[in-house]
C-alpha cells in the first residue's frame, strides 16, 4: 500500500469514527416520558362519548425512597390548563397506602402555562409555607413529586415554577432555592 493510500485510509477511518460518534450522540436515549393514552367512553345511555386520558401518577411509600406509579383516568376538558388543574387535584388528593408529600390544607390557587418558556407556574396557598415540615428531604420530596409527575405526563411542560400566595418565595422551609424554576429529575421515579 502506497503512502498516499495509507493516508487516505487513515483519514477515512477517522471520519468514519467521527460520523459514528455523531450518530450515537444523535440517537442517544432521550429521557423517558409517558404518553397519556386517550380513551373514549360512552355514557349510560350510549348517546354521548366522553374523552378520557389515562395518566400515570407517582406517590411515595414508607418502604421505598422512590415514587411509586399508580394509573388514573381524567376526563379531558376543553382547556388544557383545566386538565393540569384536574391532574394536580388528583395528586393532592393522594392515594390510599401511599404518602402524598404535601401538608394538610395546601391547595392550588391558580396555574398558568407559559408556552414560550415551556414552563408551568403553580401558585399554592400560604398553607404550603406555614405548615411545611422543615427539612431538606421533605422540601425535595414535595418539589420533585410535583415537577416529575407533571413533566412525566405532559410533554409540553419542561419546567415548573412555584409561587406561594401569589408571590415568589425564597425557599419552602429554609433550604432549597424556590425562586428559580425546577426541571424534572426522573431519578426519583421507581420505573425510570
Amino acid at each position, binding site marked *: 500500500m502506497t503512502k498516499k*493510500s495509507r493516508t*487516505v*485510509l487513515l*483519514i*477515512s477511518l477517522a*471520519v*468514519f469514527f467521527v*460520523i459514528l460518534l455523531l450518530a450515537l450522540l444523535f440517537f442517544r436515549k432521550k429521557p423517558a416520558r409517558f404518553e397519556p393514552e386517550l380513551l373514549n367512553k360512552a355514557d349510560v345511555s350510549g348517546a354521548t362519548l366522553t374523552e378520557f386520558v389515562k395518566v400515570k401518577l407517582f406517590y*411515595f*411509600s*414508607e*418502604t421505598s*425512597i422512590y415514587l411509586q406509579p399508580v394509573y388514573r383516568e381524567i376526563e379531558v376538558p376543553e382547556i388544557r390548563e383545566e386538565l393540569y388543574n384536574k391532574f394536580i387535584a388528583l395528586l393532592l388528593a393522594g392515594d390510599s397506602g401511599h*404518602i*402524598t*408529600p404535601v401538608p394538610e390544607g395546601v391547595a392550588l390557587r391558580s396555574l398558568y402555562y407559559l408556552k414560550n418558556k415551556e414552563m408551568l407556574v403553580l401558585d399554592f396557598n400560604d398553607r404550603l409555607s406555614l405548615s411545611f*415540615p*422543615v*427539612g*431538606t*428531604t*421533605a422540601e*425535595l*420530596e*414535595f418539589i420533585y413529586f410535583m415537577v416529575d409527575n407533571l413533566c412525566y405526563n405532559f410533554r409540553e411542560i419542561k419546567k415548573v415554577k412555584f409561587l406561594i400566595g401569589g408571590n415568589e418565595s*425564597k*425557599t419552602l422551609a*429554609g*433550604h*432549597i*432555592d424556590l425562586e*428559580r*424554576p425546577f*426541571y424534572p429529575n426522573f431519578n426519583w421515579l421507581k420505573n425510570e
Partner: protein
Amino acid sequence: MKKFIRTSTLFISILVLPHLLTSLAIDIRSFDHQGFTRIVFEADRSFTYTIQNRPGQMQVHLSDRADFRERTLAVQNSPLLDRVIHEIRGNKSIFTIFFKSDATVQKSFVLEKPFRVVFDFVKSEKPAALPASTPENPEKKPDPPQETQSAPSKPKPIETICIDPGHGGEDLGAIGKSKLQEKDVTLRISHKLKKLIESRTGLRVIMTRDKDSEVSLNTRASIANNQLAQMFISIHANSSFRKSAYGSETYFVSLKATDQESLELAQKENRNLEDPGETIKNDELKMILWNMAQTEYIRESSKLAEYIQNELNELLDTRNRGVKQAPFRVLMRTAMPAVLIETAFISNSREEKKLKSEEFLDKIAFAIYNGISKFIYYYNNILK
C-alpha cells in the same frame, strides 16, 4: 477497497471541507459595569481557545481563523481595558486584549445559542506584573473588595473555616416527635466542631451564629464571604414525609440551576444589545453574578462533601444516603468550597433519640472534623 476509499474521501470532503474553508464569523462587544468590564466573543459556530496572560495584556488564541472586520477595536468607557487587536497566524486567530490598568479575569464562561465566550475583567489585587510606577504615574491602591470580588483571585492554603449552624431564633427548623428542635441540635454540633478544629489545627473558625438567633440565608453567605472564609460547612438535621427515612447525607450545589442562571444572563445580555433602550440594571446583573458565586468551586465542594460523607458513614454506623446535589440557597452565594450536611433524620423517632445524646453529637462533630482535615490536606497539596 480503492472504490471504498475514494467514496469515503468524497463523502468526507462534502461534509468537512466547506466547514474548514469557512472562517469563523466573529463579533466582539464590551460593556462596563461598576466593578467589572465584560468582553464577549460571539461566533456563528463553536470554537476552542486557549488563554495566555502577559504583563499588561491577555491573549485569546482561537482554534480557527476568524473573519473579524477590524484589526483594532477600542474598548469604550472602560477604566480597565484599552483595546483589542486581532492578528492572523496561519489558520488561527489571536485576539490580544490590552489593559489600561492592572486587570485580571475574574470569571469566564461559555454560552450557547449563539455561541459566546465571555470574560469578566476586574481590577487585579496585585499589580506586580506591570512596570514599576513612576512619579507621574503613582501606583494606585486596589479598590476595596466588592461583593462579587470576595473570592481571593489566587487560592491560598486554608486558614479560615466558616461553620453555619442551620436555622435559629424563631426559625426552629425541623421538630421531632418528642419536640427536639433542629436549631438546638445544629448549634450544639457546631460548637463541638469549632472547638475540635481550633484545638487540633489552630485554624481560624468563624460561625454564622453562636447563639440562638435568627440569621437570614443571604447574611450567612455574606458573613463567610466578607470574612474571606475558604470553606463553608452548613450543619442541619433532616426531615421527611416518610417517617421511616433515616441516615446521613452531604450536599453540594447542583449545576443545573446555575446553567439556568447563565442562560438568563445571556438572555438579558442579548436584550441589552438588541435594544439600547433596555438596559441591565447594575444591581440586577450583580445579583445574578452573586447567585453564581458557587459555580467556580463545584469541584472542590464535591470533594469536600465526599470526604465528610465517608467519615460520617464510618463513624455513625447509620444508613449512607450519599453525596447529593441540590440548589441550596445558602450555598449558592458562597464563594468558596461549600457543603450542607444533613446529619440524621429528626423526623425518625430512633434518630431523634440519638440526636439527643451528647455522645452521638460528639461522633458527628468528630466525623465532620476528620472529613475537613482530609480535605485540607488534599486542597493544600494541590496548591503546592
